[in-house]
């Protein structure tokens, strides 16, 4: 039996795959992935966008996209993605009970991720955004070895502790030959809603140096705004629920820059 790395195969019908990752947990990957998906759909009118929640242990996409329920299965034994705001979504969260933990070892996780990649009836998509879990382990390796990821967006907050993990995340993508399209500096500054005083709760501009070191650009600076969290909790991503807000505009800018930086598809 030939042993070696799994062969990379594209997902039929899916043109470009973008991984949203970080290395560090809790910096806003899922929030960014959701708003980036919606941003791409807004910037590229008539494009079809899908969103895959690969965070098997902590799937946030159902909550953020206000989606629930078990996916239907087609006659070809493929799961139909659930749709909201025009985005097709698939998540482990649709396949398990809300309070049920996924207590699986790496091998089982690999198999689940494979199903989430290959047994979903995505149809024709211009962009598939993959919301990656935190860390640099099984899931990240399985995904990047299994499908051709066009590029990655690394989300970080300004503080050193996040940047160090973001750097590890970037290194991981380098190891598997996935281009890093740029960084998103999230929770960059907090503006008091009462007196408008700005506080850099998580530090200031930390991502600049990392961007220089990695030779990539900062795709956007997203402020820490109650609006984002309030809307997220309600499953109404800020790009669709408050499109004129500075936060939404920041996300739209990120989307535009991602499109500029995606390598042109070879086929």
């Amino acid at each position: 039996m030939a042993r070696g790395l799994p062969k990379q195969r594209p997902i039929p019908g899916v043109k470009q795959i973008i991984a949203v990752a970080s290395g560090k947990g809790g910096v806003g990957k899922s929030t960014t992935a959701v708003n980036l998906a919606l941003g791409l759909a807004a910037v590229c009118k008539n494009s079809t966008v899908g969103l895959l929640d690969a965070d098997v242990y902590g799937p946030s996409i159902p909550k953020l996209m206000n989606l629930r329920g078990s996916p239907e299965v087609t006659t070809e034994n493929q799961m139909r993605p659930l749709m909201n705001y025009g985005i097709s979504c698939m998540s482990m969260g649709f396949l398990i009970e809300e309070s049920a933990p996924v207590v699986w070892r790496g091998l089982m996780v690999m198999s689940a991720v494979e199903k989430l990649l290959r047994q979903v009836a995505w149809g024709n998509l211009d962009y598939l955004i993959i919301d990656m879990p935190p860390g640099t382990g099984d899931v990240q390796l399985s995904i990047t070895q299994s499908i051709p990821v066009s590029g990655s967006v690394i989300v970080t907050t300004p503080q050193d502790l996040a940047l160090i993990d973001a750097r590890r995340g970037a290194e991981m993508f380098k190891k598997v030959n996935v281009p890093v399209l740029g960084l998103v500096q999230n929770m960059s500054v907090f503006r008091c809603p009462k007196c408008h005083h700005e506080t850099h709760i998580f530090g200031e501009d930390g991502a600049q140096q990392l961007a220089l070191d990695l030779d990539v650009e900062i795709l956007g600076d997203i402020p820490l705004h109650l609006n984002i969290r309030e809307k997220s909790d309600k499953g109404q991503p800020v790009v669709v629920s408050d499109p004129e807000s500075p936060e939404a505009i920041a996300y739209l800018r990120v989307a535009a820059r991602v499109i500029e930086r995606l390598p042109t598809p070879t086929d």
Partner: protein
Amino acid sequence: MEGDEDKDNLSSVKHIVVVLSGKGGVGKSTVTVQLALSLRQAGKKVGILDIDLCGPSIPRMLNLQTKDVHQCDAGWVPVYADRERTIALMSIGFLLENVNDAVVWRGPKKTALIKQFISSVAWGELDYLIIDTPPGTSDEHLAMVEGLQRYSIDGALLVTTPQAVSTGDVRREITFCRKTGLRILGIVENMSGFVCPHCEECSNVFSKGGGEELAKVCGVRFLGCIPLDPHLSHSLEEGRDFIEEFPQSAAFSAFKQLAQAVERGPP
């Protein structure tokens, strides 16, 4: 013949506390370190075992990122944060050639290292061993539960932030604890509110009350709220002792309360 396999490195550790979350970026490592520092201030000898292999933050938080570990007969000698040896730390960060290297490993390798970390660190006498975990419910967590099977664990401290995407993941972690027989000491709600340093208006950036609500719903103790405090983030970045330097802060009293709850022990 290889000597005592039975040299039990955990035999002189009086209490073991595990810090879990399910969600990334809620402050597990921060809570671990502040809890350790608060216990130290109360006169205890504390050890920290950092099993977050992909994102080891603790060495930096204690300003120990340049240190090396050494071996002795009984295994690894932990790194001490001070000459008096009141805080000891073991982390994969010390085993990496470059402290910012990425650890891109699959499950079985992680499991093996964690089991080694549990059995082969020569802690000596400790009042408390606090174990910091990565987010999720995967190989690392299973390895830890299995490795600690024959020891009595005081319990698990669950850290959450108030918003729905966090409490959802932490709910799963509670189920994990119940399934694996891990006693729950309680839930602490971190990043609970931000007080503007300029006008003192409190903004619930990440919402409020989600942790307390979760504790109520799941029938576990609620151990308090820790506010967002730029002094705290700053201290962690620089590896300084927040507990020593900012005793007037609201976060300090929250951590002191938490330490007292841990000292009181399981309900």
